């Protein structure tokens, strides 16, 4: 145990060094935003930790102070940085709040949820159908690797990331860049909500069984089955979300 935590400590401090390594001149504000934002979201910069001064950040990141100032402003807007004035003031990291999924759910009307589900099912189904028609064994290998990693995943966050990767790999196997981009966009949009629903719906075993069935249909070249399974995967989760939504008080 001790050794493992020591290693983790070293990894974190190496990662912390990387946070402050120089950013190339061509980088823009969003690179600084991403670098600092990721570090805060990951806890590399702890909640409440004071960030270096603007001038020092500029020096360490290799960008102008104007760039740093703009980046800090964007991070403030996202709630990842808090700036206090006066004595003891400065910019401080703020750990992101766990996104409150039920709040998000309450913002969506039932017909919106149904519509999102219809859209996602169309994309996921079409991608799975084309993947079954067009994929080569080398396209199917990454799907199984992701499913194996999911079976061994130790945290819900890791599982969710791998779940996202699996569905993007299915979309990429369709050979359609547009379907893949749409899959990525939809995941960013409603991924957390659907995930909530999967977790609720009989947990990871059921989800894993659906994933395996999709991968098998794609591997077998069964286009109709792959489409049906992928649509079902999305629509089951959407139905469940709608049930949850209907039970929420306005």
């Amino acid at each position, binding site marked *: 145990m001790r050794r493992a935590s020591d290693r983790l400590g070293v*990894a974190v401090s*190496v*990662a912390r*060094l*990387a946070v402050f*390594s*120089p950013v*190339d001149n*061509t*980088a823009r504000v969003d*690179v600084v935003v*991403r*670098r600092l934002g*990721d570090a805060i*979201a*990951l806890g590399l910069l702890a909640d409440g930790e004071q960030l270096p001064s603007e001038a020092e950040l500029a020096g360490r990141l290799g960008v102008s102070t104007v760039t740093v100032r703009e980046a800090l402003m964007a991070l403030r807007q996202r709630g990842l940085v808090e700036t206090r004035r006066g004595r003891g003031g400065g910019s401080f990291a703020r750990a992101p709040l766990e996104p409150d999924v039920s709040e998000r759910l309450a913002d969506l009307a039932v017909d919106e949820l149904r519509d999102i589900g219809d859209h996602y099912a169309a994309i996921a189904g079409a991608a799975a159908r084309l993947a*079954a*028609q*067009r994929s*080569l*064994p*080398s*396209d199917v*290998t*990454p799907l199984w*690797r*992701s499913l194996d990693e999911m079976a061994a995943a130790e945290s819900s966050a*890791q599982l969710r*990331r*791998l779940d*996202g*990767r699996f569905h*993007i790999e299915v*979309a*990429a196997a*369709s*050979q*359609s*860049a547009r379907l*893949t*981009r749409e899959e*990525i966009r939809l995941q960013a949009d409603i991924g957390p909500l659907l995930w909530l629903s999967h977790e609720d719906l009989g947990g990871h075993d059921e989800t894993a069984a659906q994933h395996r069935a999709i991968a098998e249909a794609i591997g077998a*070249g069964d*286009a109709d089955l792959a489409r049906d399974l992928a649509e079902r995967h999305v629509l089951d989760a959407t139905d469940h979300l709608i049930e949850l939504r209907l039970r929420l008080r306005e």
Partner: protein
Amino acid sequence: MTTRSDTARPDAARSDAPPGPGPATPRATLRAASRATSAAAVPAPPPAVPAVTAPDEAAVLARVRDTAEEVFAALADVRAATAGRARAVRRGGRALVSADLAALRPLLFGRLGTIIAGIGFIAAPGLLADAPWYLEWWQESPAGPPVQLLRDLDPSSSAFYDYTHWDWYTGPESGAERTVCGPYVDYLCTDEYSLTLSVPVTLDGVFLGVAAADVFVRRFQAAVLPALREVPVPAFLVNAQGRVVASNTARWVAGSVYRGAEGFAVRPVPGLPLALVEGTGR
């Protein structure tokens, strides 16, 4: 995202295959062709088809070769510069760090904007003293100067960090002198339908990483289509697994898979893991 030719398995049952009468002969032909043009194999193409080459076919093969050679020439420069930098740093008595690779940038920038949309060096994990994973990877930007790909390479936060699974990495790592991956949807970098060409970078026989370049499929097509169009029968280029890269017919469009079909002959492109497939009914 494609792998080597041992995965080539023409399968007429798949619905993407044309409803031809039987796959017997073309299947054998494709298998022979893909073995000969495997990314991992030394190119020594057997005579899969008669040696007689029509002038229009020869023009296609030449165009494909010239296009690929332009990319591989750039990769040879990146390889030499990377190995040279690594040697110089080590002679100086210290370990290589990611900042040392910034010296490659003028070279990389100079190779962008032709047919190459992205180019760089991908370090073998553990090569650099300051970063377990690192890409010195630059992409052209329509709006201005090249931009560096800054991927999240932290395994604890990303599901995508491990680049060593990708065939543009495993090919060179396992000793292939020239690897051509794709076409595939490159969701890691550009979200474009792309080819990735790669070569190993070694120093004193030790593998340091991979020099690689991305070529958008549409640009590759633009380069070879004028020659392909002159072929009077359906003709298309496939990779070692049978994936169509460029075509003169909507029937076999890029991204579809040639799994063998009656009435087609396969002609390997010498020295590359690609083949020209064309209708035999001239």
